[in-house]
């Protein structure tokens, strides 16, 4: 199997520019940008905080808009392959010197770049707004804020990859969207509370059993909450796994789903 980086780049490039013009991207990313910037601006304007509270404000703003870290990648990826099949454009694409692996990786990279192109500027603008009111945050805090942003992008990549996987074998884009939302987002997040309930009913209350940790780690959304410890204490719950374990879980999730996408699409008959 020969994979050409140039082919991946060309596919991602097309995907990137095509997505930037879609209504769904403009709508969802617009709402996200508005929510995040308003949140930072309101917190900065109506508070008596100092530059030392930058990470607290940032954590709160990320929490307000955290739903977009699942919705945005799913909305941009659920039909990446299925749309090509329905529109029959897959036949022209695969009649060119590209293989299926390059198509999957190119599409993944395209959406990844689209998401980076909205998250990085919005967080930077948010930080600048905070600076206007409370002075420039320290280099240490800024570094942490971008480290957390990197973790968010890693979590969104997991959703891109999962939606991509569903879109490789779904016969329709609607099916892929439903699978991405119900299984990918809601379903995976529900495993952890169920495991906690099981633990409570089984009477095992000493320590955190392994299955509870795995149940938590399997959801990118849970890991996103866990990773908030990079900049502040978590807002909603005390995560049963460490920051390092969360990052490891996200990387494993990303690699496994991406590999499954590659294998599924490679083996599939495009009838």
């Amino acid at each position, binding site marked *: 199997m*020969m994979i*050409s980086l*140039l*082919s991946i780049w*060309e*596919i991602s*490039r*097309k995907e990137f520019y*095509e997505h930037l*013009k*879609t209504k769904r991207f403009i709508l969802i990313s617009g709402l996200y940008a508005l929510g995040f910037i308003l949140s930072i601006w309101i917190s900065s304007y109506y508070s008596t905080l100092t530059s030392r509270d930058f990470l607290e404000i940032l954590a709160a703003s990320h929490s307000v808009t955290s739903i977009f870290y699942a919705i945005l990648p799913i909305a941009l990826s659920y039909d990446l392959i299925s749309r*090509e099949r329905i*529109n*029959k*454009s*897959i*036949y*022209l*694409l*695969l*009649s*060119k*010197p*590209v*293989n299926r692996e390059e198509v999957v990786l190119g599409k993944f990279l395209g959406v990844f770049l689209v998401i980076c192109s909205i998250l990085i500027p919005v967080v930077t603008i948010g930080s600048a707004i905070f600076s206007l009111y409370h002075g420039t945050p320290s280099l240490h805090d800024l570094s942490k804020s971008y480290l957390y942003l990197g973790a968010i992008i890693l979590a969104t990549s997991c959703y891109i990859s999962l939606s991509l996987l569903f879109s490789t074998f779904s016969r329709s884009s609607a099916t892929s969207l439903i699978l991405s939302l119900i299984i990918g987002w809601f379903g995976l997040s529900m495993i952890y509370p169920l495991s906690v309930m099981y633990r409570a009913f089984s009477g095992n209350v000493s320590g955190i059993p392994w299955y509870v940790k795995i149940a938590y780690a399997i959801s990118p959304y849970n890991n996103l909450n866990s990773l908030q410890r990079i900049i502040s204490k978590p807002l909603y719950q005390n995560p049963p796994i460490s920051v390092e374990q969360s990052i490891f879980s996200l990387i494993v999730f990303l690699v496994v789903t991406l590999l499954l996408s590659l294998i599924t699409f490679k*083996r599939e*008959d*495009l*009838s």
Partner: protein
Amino acid sequence: MNSGLKFYSIVIPTLKYTNHNLTGVIEVSNLKKSYGNIVALDGISFEVKKGEAFAFLGPNGAGKTTTIKILMGFLYPDSGEVKIFGKDVNRYEKEIRKRIGFLPEEIGFYENLTVYDNMDFYARLFGISKLERNKIIKETLERVGLLDRKDSKVKELSHGMKQRLGIAQSLINHPELLIYDEPTSGLDPRSSYEVRKLIKDLLREGVTLFLSSHLLYEVQQICDTVAIIDKGKLVKKDRIENLIREIRGQTIRVRITCLNLNEDILKIAREVRGVTRIKTSDKAIIADVKDEDTIANLNSAITKAGGRITKIEHLTPDLEQIFLKLTGENK
């Protein structure tokens, strides 16, 4: 003037663009493919030689599109071997696709991108440099008459324009092999004519053509070799004139319309060597002759005898009759 050749016409069964050597561009061997219990392809084998204009015919559901999709690597066969340019299609997909131009039956473009952007994307996938890309895209769009629509979004184009854009994208890499599935599907007569003309021009340039079409008239105009597939099996594969000869037997039947037909002319016509049978119908002679030379001799003899010939027609079966006979649809 008594030449008798005021309106001389002979219906020629096929147009030929013969530039063959013995290299097999496409080699299909014992290809099998099933969808559950439905057998789509049942061990078909054929070969397309370099420079050949090869038509792939069959009724709906015969397995034509399945074969094309296997050739392009979209479907995996259950068994059998498919080679293009001597290489396995699934192992050397990228090398093979660099040399192929493909036009599917249902063409899907990126509708929100412009004509130029679609072409540019496909050209980039071939690794064509920016300078060359711009030149090739303009040349190709001009060739299919779409240069003035290069900035239009694809969704704004008519069906015929999209079909022409489909042909344009298939030519962007200067392919050696064209695989076309119903290239004139849904086109108006003028556009169909232009597409056929374009294909003929490409054939003259030495391109090999694998054409699937329902339009037998189109096939007869463009192709020199035909494979007929029915129920997943290859029923026949031969050059069109051989198929016609096989169907009609060893003789050629011609109708010679002669304005002043009389017994003397008939007698002279009967004496021409190679004429096996003669009868009359209205003002015409219907003759069974051995070969094309006999037709020329017959023409000459009748003219010398004072006959005023206005028309000479082959009464041989056309591709449609062959197709119906071989696929059993005339029963």
